[in-house]
């Protein structure tokens, strides 16, 4: 490993570089069987578990629904944009509507222990690997 000083930009650099080379991996294998590609997902690994991070700006927690079964997770809801009465719109860049996306992970997970955190328009799903899926150390006699 490198010297004693941790480069504070290391985490930033490696994240940016990795996100940059958009992986054309088959990792999710066309597994998003839901109706579309919104919201966009980034999936990370933390030790043995997975962390999925999704961006949903403007969606309130009450409009968001997450369901999990076997190794699929379904994220659905709606994004409402409301203008004041009698407003004239000068610029319209944001979009509103409904979304429904299903994510299938290629490892065995424990749906009961999935934790979801939603803050500032970002949904983070902590997906723990099933105990039965973790490698077991075999002792030698």
């Amino acid at each position, binding site marked *: 490993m490198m010297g004693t000083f941790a480069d504070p930009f290391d985490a*930033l650099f490696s994240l940016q570089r990795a996100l940059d080379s958009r992986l054309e991996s088959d990792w999710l294998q066309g597994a998003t069987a839901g109706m579309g590609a919104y919201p966009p997902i980034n999936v990370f690994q933390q030790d043995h578990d997975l962390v999925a991070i999704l961006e949903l700006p403007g969606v309130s927690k009450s409009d968001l629904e997450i369901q999990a079964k076997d190794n699929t997770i379904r994220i659905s809801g709606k994004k409402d944009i409301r203008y004041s009465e009698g407003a004239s719109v*000068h*610029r319209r860049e944001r979009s509103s509507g409904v979304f429904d996306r299903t994510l299938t992970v290629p490892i065995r997970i424990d749906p009961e222990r999935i934790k979801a955190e939603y803050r500032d328009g970002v949904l983070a799903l902590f997906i723990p690997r099933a105990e039965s899926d973790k490698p077991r150390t075999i002792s030698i006699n």
Partner: protein
Amino acid sequence: MSPQQLQVQEKRELAKKEESTVPARIFVPTTDIFETDEALTLAVEMPGVDRNKVDGNVENGVLTIQGQIDFSKYAGLRLLYTEYNIGHYPRSFSISDRIDQDKISAEMKDGVLTLVLPKAEQAKPRRIAVG
């Protein structure tokens, strides 16, 4: 009519004019601008930006907003699959004298920054009573 399916909007990356000392990317945040008799309202999407990391100021008739992302949350995570990139969100708009610059208010909710720019008194539409 059934509500429409949301489509993914690709983030628009900004090519920087000067080099910055911090190696983060910057993206143009999608913004809606609408106007009522009372005020001009901007709704700026900055997902992942905490309200303490938003800076806004008005100088020489230019409103500049900047939302900073906290990358430390990603430390210790190894990337497996990616669909979007992450960066800071700056944007600036020139605003006219018709805005009361001292009374601009801002609110951050669910990653959307809503700025209300109230119109200066003399700029509000006034009804002319015809005798």
